[in-house]
């Protein structure tokens, strides 16, 4: 039976996809190579990983405001995450998700970087405030 986890109602439409999880923070400017579609910051726990079309599961937001524009441009170029799941975001991530139309949820009862595993198949429903684990990664 699928596991359904509740969170605060989010932004964007419901999507399904594969999770990429790390206990680390996020900024599109600080962390990504937005030409190659990978995490480029050497100290990031996802350094070298492709974020394209993955459901990113991370702790929180880093500084900077650029993500508010960048998600929109990344989506137009087809190199955007499919959804974002955070413990708690700052306004920039929410603004960027709203502007780009990227699904975003946060504020779960437990740490999302422990609730979800890389490779989990998830369904994110921002309007309902739920994330369903369709298939657990091995």
């Amino acid at each position, binding site marked *: 039976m699928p596991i359904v986890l509740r969170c605060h109602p989010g932004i964007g439409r419901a999507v399904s996809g594969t999770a990429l999880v790390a206990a680390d923070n996020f900024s599109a*400017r600080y962390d990504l190579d937005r030409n190659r579609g990978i995490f480029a910051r050497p100290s990031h726990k996802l350094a070298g990983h492709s974020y394209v079309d993955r459901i990113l599961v991370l702790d929180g937001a880093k500084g900077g405001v650029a993500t*508010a524009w*960048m998600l929109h441009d990344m989506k137009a170029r087809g190199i955007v995450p499919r959804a974002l799941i955070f413990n708690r975001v700052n*306004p920039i991530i929410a603004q960027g998700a709203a502007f780009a139309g990227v699904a975003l949820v946060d504020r779960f009862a437990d740490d999302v970087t422990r609730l979800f595993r890389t490779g989990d198949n998830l369904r994110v429903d921002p309007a309902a405030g739920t994330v369903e684990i369709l298939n657990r990664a091995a």
Partner: protein
Amino acid sequence: MRLTDEENAMLAGELGAPRRWAITHQIAVGEFFDAADFVGVSQAHIMADTESLGEAGVAFLEGLAAAPEPERRVRVPSITDPRGIDFAIYRRLGQSAAMAALERRVIKTLSAFGVLMTDTCINYQTVIAPLRGEHVAYGDTGAVIYANSVLGARSNFEGGPSALAAALTGRTPRYGYQLEACRRATRRFRLVASPRDLCEWGAVGGIVGEACGSYWQVPVIEGLVTVPGSDALKQFGAALASYGSVALFHMPGITAEDVVFAGAPPDPIPIGPPDIAAFLARYAAPGDKLDVVVFAAPQLSLYEMAAVADVVDGRQIHPDTTVIVATSPEIKHAADRMGLTARIEASGAFVAQGICFYQSYAREMAEANGWTRLMTNSAKLVNILGGYGYRPSLGGLEHCIDSAVAGRVL
């Protein structure tokens, strides 16, 4: 969210497509953060560098700007954060004609909204500083934290789309640091000794920022025995916002608001010279060939420009090292008039206006110029540039210039 008649009219499109887009975007963000309603803002500060916008963002702005003039005019004084291109020097920086062309499109578009092209992240030092209690929509983390903390104004981090939306509607959702309840202190630090220069103030901001690690934490910094000054708190706040995503701090007796803790005050965490030294040591690279030295992030005040001029006077930068000094157009004009630009550029350094380096295609500049080792006195800049392929080093103004003259990190 509870909407007024006018806000409902905007939402219905009765005031034009730009304001309908703007309030729709703001409602989505406001509901995400459980805002009950909107609050009027007195000014907006819009980050819209072309590296972040990309072609898609520029096309979006052009689409909004195609509306009739009465429908697209901003409702409150609205200004811009640094741009991606300084047209006087972009070729020397290795930026392309395509980047410059995109920049021209954005300038034309923002001007069509009635946005004032100030191109600065130090608007609080060079344009108009907000007053205590003033609700604003600022779009640079350094500007937000300075306005919230030092001046007691009220702003969340308003990224480019949201700051533009606030400019078009004249309001912003009432959540986060627009609310009194969110401004209470949650963390407590005590300075054992005063930082000795702007670089060390940035280091302390980085230390506190890493310890906080969240937009929703509000640190108190105690133990100051002298008033730091505007440039010191600019560097401190910018680093705190960069390393921790923090938007508000309190320094009792110095910043604008009385300290009220959310709950029982925690024991203070001491920060002393060994902590600052350890922070700087993370970026140390003695002996490395030095490709580029940058003074920016935030842009330099007039006093900082004068300090750079004093340190470079009569010296020559090493021919294999590029030195960039970035400031706002207003300060650049003042520096020109006062002879500071000529003194700085006589050394081989050059002064850039209206840009802030990391917002200027930093990755492409590195690739075009073969830059890897960068040195700066800005903790914020070293934090950002790690993801752009640079190996950044952090040092004080004199250390940076001495290294630039030597062509290697000293």
